[in-house]
């Protein structure tokens, strides 16, 4: 009697912990824990975290993480991601090498940048609870670009890529038009649109939530085209004397969609599949907050006036000397 009670208790605890795990969001976190920041550095124009590698070649990092919000992040370790599937695709849609390692900055997904364009990283976890299969897809798009490689065919190379046969549920960030290029970094005030796709087809009615690292969040239901548009908030306001205007903030977008399986399919262990897809990213304050054309015009006008006055005075001095001669 006691033995069976103990078994039931264990099963209940396990199932409750699994449920708790499922209701937590999983994502490939683009920033490390605060206390290990000294082991990594922000690199390049896109402000990605990287670790110095051999011969000066950097290894870029994503940290598998979960939590209820971006302020309550639990970084996963090798045990928790044991059953996870990881993928990394190059802009040419080819598999790329990556490694999962216990680094000084925590358990991380490490990769090199090869070809120019967006590299897609995925982490997939599946949980079966009662009659529902939860498929949690954590996606990250990372842009590789070096100006020395040129800027040809930018629009073609930055197009979002999807893998419907392998990744059943996807979320893509539609590129800003016009003007998104290799040097693009999302700014406060920008309107950013996400498209939700199930096996390559647009999903209407999916729940999409945009959260910032200051816990601002908004949920939108996708329209006919499967899109949800958010305006990136401005939630970083430096004090007057502070010159950290390009401070990088982070956002996480989560899409959720449940599919009911065909009732005729009696062999299936579950009746529903609940898909979630997360997509993290960086954004900076709007350029209009720290760039001023007005002051540029003032500087130019004042400089022109000063230079002209200097030239006029020096010329008149020369003329005086010449006239004396």
């Amino acid at each position, binding site marked *: 009697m006691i033995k069976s009670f103990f078994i039931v208790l264990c099963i209940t605890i396990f199932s409750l912990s699994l449920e708790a795990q499922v209701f937590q969001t999983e994502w490939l976190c683009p920033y490390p824990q605060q206390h290990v920041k000294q082991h990594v550095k922000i690199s390049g124009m896109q402000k990605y975290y990287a670790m110095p590698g*051999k011969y*000066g*070649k950097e290894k870029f990092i994503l940290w598998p993480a979960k939590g209820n919000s971006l302020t309550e992040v639990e970084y996963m370790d090798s045990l928790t991601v044991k059953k996870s599937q990881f993928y990394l695709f190059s802009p040419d849609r080819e598999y790329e090498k990556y490694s999962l390692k216990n680094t000084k900055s925590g358990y991380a997904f490490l990769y090199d940048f090869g070809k120019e364009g967006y590299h897609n990283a995925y982490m997939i976890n599946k949980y079966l609870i009662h009659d529902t299969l939860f498929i949690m897809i954590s996606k990250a798009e990372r842009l590789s670009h070096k100006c*020395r490689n040129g800027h040809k065919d930018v629009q073609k190379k930055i197009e979002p890529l999807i893998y419907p046969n392998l990744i059943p549920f996807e979320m893509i960030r539609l590129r800003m038009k016009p003007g998104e290029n290799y040097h693009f970094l999302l700014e406060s005030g920008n309107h950013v649109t996400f498209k939700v796709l199930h096996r390559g087809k647009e999903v209407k009615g999916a729940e999409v939530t945009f959260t910032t690292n200051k816990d601002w969040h908004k949920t939108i239901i996708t329209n006919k085209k499967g899109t949800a548009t958010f305006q990136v908030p401005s939630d970083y306001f430096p004090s007057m004397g502070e010159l950290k205007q*390009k401070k990088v903030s982070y956002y996480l977008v989560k899409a959720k969609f449940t599919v009911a399986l065909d009732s005729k399919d009696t062999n299936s262990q579950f009746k529903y599949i609940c898909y979630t897809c997360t997509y993290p990213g960086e954004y900076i304050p709007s350029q209009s907050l720290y760039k*001023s*054309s007005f002051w540029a015009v003032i500087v130019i*006008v004042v400089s022109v006036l000063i*230079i002209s006055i200097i030239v006029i005075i020096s010329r008149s001095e020369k003329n005086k000397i010449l006239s004396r001669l």
Partner: protein
Amino acid sequence: MKKIRKYIDNSNLSLFRSIIQIIFFIILVYGGFKAISISEKIPTFACPYNVRTGGTCYLINIQHQLHSEWAGFITWRGISVLTALLTFIGLFIILNKSWCGFICPLGTIQDWLTKLRRLFGVRFSRYNKTSFKSLKVIKYIVLILLLVIPLGMSNSFFGLPKITEDMSAPYCQLCPARTVLPAATGDFTQFYIDFSSTTTIIMTTLAMIITALFFVGSFLKKRFFCFFCPMSALQFLFAKIGLLRLVKVGNKCTSCGNCSRVCDIGINAIADDLENKFIVKDDCMMCFKCVEACPENNCLKVKFTGLTIFRSTDEGFFKRFSKTKDYNITIDRKLSKND
């Protein structure tokens, strides 16, 4: 054959140069509208900050390439630095510094500002010998800085802290091409002061002051900015291996000084130097105005792979200067009359 030779020697090279400059200005500044992209290694001032550019300046390439840790240079990055440099040298061997005189779009804008000054009848400025000597060093200092700063951003020199990333492509941040060339396509977005950090405030303010200097300076002094241009300094390092050469036959020179007077940069050595055969100086932009203004037969020659393609002749000189009113020579005549 003699007729062709005579026709070329008597021709108005300045007019030909102006036409070439306009063609290349259109290609390099507006070429992007028609998806033209010449290369990324060509030493143009086809500034990449101009979205519609038809090429890319080599200086931005080299600054990005040098932004690497020392160890990086013994890998793929070293190869890319080397190949870019070799492409640059390769093209430079063919054109030598005539790129500055005939093709550089920033140079073309300066020539147009000179024409504008003439239109207004404003007197032009020249440096005196002392200023000329001291100011010409600036371009070498700028060249060294633009090579060292990117290295200092990735490496620590003598245990000093690394240079801030806000100094990325430091020369480009200050170069007037960044503001002027996009403005030529109607894009004024490069005119700004960036208040995001102390470094960016200093750099963008300096850039605006340099832009103002560029306009006023180029209006009053011919090819004002070329005198400080690090590209000119970089090109001069390879001038001796160029196939295009400016040759002077010293014993035919009468030291009349016409060549130095018409020189947009104001190089006196071209008149004074009777010893050296190859007289491309570091500030020379190979516009060949000196050859046009030389009244002595075969004294100055433009040679390509040893073959004379243009030379000074008395007939050519009188033909050209009886038609055109060259401002410098007119001034000189007036001055000599006063003397």
